């Protein structure tokens, strides 16, 4: 079966990644997959305010996901945090936390700000990819990167990295997935729609395979910032 944009079922959309795009931040990255474009900036570890939120045992990882007002596929997205963006921010935190050792940052916070400039499905996953790169770019110790994508199950077929139009399909099942590339451990899993267990497991395998390709793009971009200088 051909997909609406001509891709094979296991084919990812075109990706582009870059680090160091926001000079004021401790670390930053842009990640683009198809028409979805995410920017991420990391600030910290820095002192957490207000003080009563400080935890001497463990630092806080705080993420804020936001769609720019003009980034939606239809009407203008009204600014201000809504329920959707708050939940997404939370699941992104949880997707990234397994690679960090937050106990190393007592009373401190690592802030991650994600802005979507343009969206065509898979926004939280693109946000996670950008954020993981921004954390690494900030020099924060990480056990591994985190690579994320959405997988779909539509018309009885598993398709990797669904786009906006596929997402709108009647009866489509959408799986948001993130994993640690070395171990394959899963740090984000959200399923929207009906799916049988055996199909789900197959879909997760394909997601993992595709995540390895994303990880390659992330690694390359992290090195590129230094490459010219290193060879000079």
């Amino acid at each position, binding site marked *: 079966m051909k997909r609406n944009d001509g891709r094979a079922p296991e084919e990812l959309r075109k990706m582009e990644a870059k680090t160091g795009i926001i000079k004021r931040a401790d670390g930053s990255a842009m990640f683009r997959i198809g028409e979805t474009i995410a920017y991420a900036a990391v600030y910290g*570890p820095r002192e957490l305010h207000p003080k009563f939120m400080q935890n001497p045992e463990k630092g806080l990882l705080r993420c804020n996901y936001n769609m720019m007002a003009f980034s939606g596929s239809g009407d203008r997205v009204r600014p201000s945090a809504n329920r959707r963006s708050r939940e997404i921010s939370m699941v992104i935190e949880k997707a990234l936390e397994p*690679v960090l050792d937050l106990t190393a940052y007592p009373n401190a916070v690592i802030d991650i700000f994600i802005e979507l400039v343009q969206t065509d499905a898979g926004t939280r996953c693109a946000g996670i990819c950008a954020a993981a790169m921004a954390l690494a*770019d900030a020099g924060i110790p*990480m*056990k591994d990167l985190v690579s994320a994508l959405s997988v779909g199950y539509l018309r009885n077929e598993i398709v990797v990295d669904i786009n906006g139009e596929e997402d709108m399909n009647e009866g489509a099942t959408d799986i948001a997935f993130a994993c640690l590339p070395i171990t394959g451990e899963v740090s984000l899993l959200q399923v929207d729609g009906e799916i049988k267990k055996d199909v789900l497991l197959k879909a997760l395998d394909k997601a993992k395979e595709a995540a390895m390709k994303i*990880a390659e793009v992330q690694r390359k971009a992290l*090195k590129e910032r230094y490459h010219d*200088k290193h060879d000079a």
Partner: protein
Amino acid sequence: METIENKKIVVPGEVLATGMDFLPSSGTYRDKDKIVSIYVGLTNVSGRVIRVIPLRGRYMPKRDDTIVGKIMDMTFSNWFIDMGCANMGVLSVREISEFVERGADLAEYFSHGDYVVCKISKVTRSSVDLSMRGPGLRKLGPGKLVQVDSSKVPRIIGKQGSMISMIKDKTACRIVVGQNGTVWIQGAPEDEMVAAEAIYKINQESHREGLTEEIASLLEKKASKNKPLTREDEEPIMERGRNETE
């Protein structure tokens, strides 16, 4: 035993070695039979020991480091100083060279936005204590600030302070290099620019061979011919260069 490339750029999660021939050191960890990087950094292999030296990152405070920081806040008895790491440094009134009367307004000594050079007297898990008792430790006057990666500070100072002395001499600027990567420069405006350019260049190209000569020729070409400061003009500050491989 496999060979591991030295000074190779690696990223978090990248496998550096497989098997038990090598030992993981700073910037790496062992995951079963693999040694894995935790940083975007450069590999450093000595014998069987593998390290990864991060290319960027916030300053990690260490005891006895001299730092340049900014006064952010104060209470009746302490100043809070931002030195670019996760926690504010605390400078107690008892740790400055002047005697401060009880109940005095601390803002009369140092206030918000002032830059100071201090020594780290104590580091615990979640606090950094600072002291201003010691030669050269003081509030800094108007000057140019340059922020570099704290990991590049040893290169900026050079062996036995050779690099920074050269920059000071050629530009006739006063320069204080904080181990936290904040550098303060004071001199004629044109010379401040040249000193800053040299420091930025070292920060960017720290790994290059022949950098010292390049810096020397940059200074020769651009610095004005102001008379270098005599040693008496300068407050002595202990500047500890570090071993580059550290």
